[in-house]
């Protein structure tokens, strides 16, 4: 039977420790827990982005396992190469994991990821989605949501912040007919860890898209990170789903959504939004959910 993960079953041993991420950083929690699930025989590839910048600060090194920084565009390609290298060396029972940001995944790294999935290389790819290029100071990415203020999508009289919606990265990955893909949130940690376990057991490429709040880039208080990640799912602006054996499955289908306003108002990146902007966000949410509920199983 597949191992089920929770705080009790999880090892006490830390494999990602002493990093320099901001207090309350959602991405660092995702990396910490994924590493615990994958175990000491995991080899990690991280492109430019917050998670590499906060852990590889020579001679300070937060991973207790093998890990490498890749060129920004190349997480998928480097992870593929690592998997091939381990195979050639006959090193068995190892796992290769890539941890890339939303920019590193949905924009600059999308080609290398697509190639890895196409070859069905035996890697776990985790996209840490904090909805902007945070490490370089909050620029808009393809996964920045509508209305979010970033340095490249300022909010003012003419623009409400970002005018584009989030790129549909989970479905883009699934369209490759990937072996396993899932969305997750650091607000639902058991769900996330069990998906990492599934990815670990998958022969071939697996992809997990984890929603991870960033107090520095989103302008929220550090103690509410997990709460906010849960609220995003509960209000329907994020969703928990899987793609397996060619079919989509919705893991969580709330009967009633929690308040979108409550989610938005505690983040300074959305502070400027008008009631029309919020109505547009809710409308887009409803369209997305109508489609998911129609086409996906529960």
């Amino acid at each position: 039977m597949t191992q089920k993960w929770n705080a009790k079953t999880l090892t006490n041993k830390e494999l990602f420790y002493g990093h320099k991420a901001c207090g309350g950083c959602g991405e660092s929690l995702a990396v910490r827990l994924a590493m615990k699930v994958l175990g000491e025989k995991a080899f990690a590839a991280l492109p430019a982005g917050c998670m590499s910048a906060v852990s590889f600060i020579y001679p300070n090194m937060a991973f207790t396992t093998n890990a490498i920084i890749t060129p920004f565009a190349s997480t998928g390609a480097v992870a593929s190469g690592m998997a091939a290298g381990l195979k050639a060396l006959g090193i068995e029972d190892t796992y290769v994991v890539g941890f890339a940001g939303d920019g590193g995944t949905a924009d600059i790294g999308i080609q290398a990821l697509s190639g890895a999935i196409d070859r069905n290389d035996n890697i776990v790819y985790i996209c840490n989605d904090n909805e902007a290029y945070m490490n370089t100071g909050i620029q808009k990415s393809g996964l920045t949501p509508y209305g979010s203020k970033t340095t490249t999508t300022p909010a003012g009289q003419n623009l409400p912040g970002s005018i584009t919606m989030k790129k549909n990265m989970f479905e883009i990955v699934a369209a490759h007919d990937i072996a396993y893909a899932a969305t997750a949130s650091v607000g639902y940690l058991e769900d996330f860890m069990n998906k990492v376990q599934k990815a670990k057991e998958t022969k071939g490429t697996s992809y997990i898209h984890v929603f991870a709040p960033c107090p520095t880039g989103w302008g929220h208080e550090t103690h509410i990170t997990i709460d906010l990640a849960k609220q995003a799912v509960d209000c329907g602006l994020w969703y928990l789903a899987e793609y397996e054996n060619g079919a989509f499955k919705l893991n969580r289908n709330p009967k009633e959504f929690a308040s979108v306003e409550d989610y938005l108002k505690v983040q300074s990146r959305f502070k400027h939004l008008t009631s029309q902007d919020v109505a547009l966000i809710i409308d887009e949410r409803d369209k997305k959910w109508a489609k998911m509920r129609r086409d996906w199983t529960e």
Partner: protein
Amino acid sequence: MDRPKVKKWQEPASIDAYPLGATCDSDHLVSINAGWRTFKPVIDHDKCVMCLRCFLVCPDGVIDKSGPQLEIDYDYCKGCGVCAHECKLKCITMVKEEK
């Protein structure tokens, strides 16, 4: 407590003494993060029921669960307050650090 410890680091005397290539040892911490904190989490062990929620949610992994009661590695706790906010029984208090 079973948490990685800060190591003594001697700056190499000359460039030749640096290891060849862009590599470094894993599990190699040369500085602590305690100075980042304004508030520090303090657990009321009489109230704590060891549900381990705080251990799970700490982004820095500084709450150790190996002993009979939880132990916080204050060398690496950043004082973010996530643990206190997530504890349902409210047994973690954020206390102002004294200089």
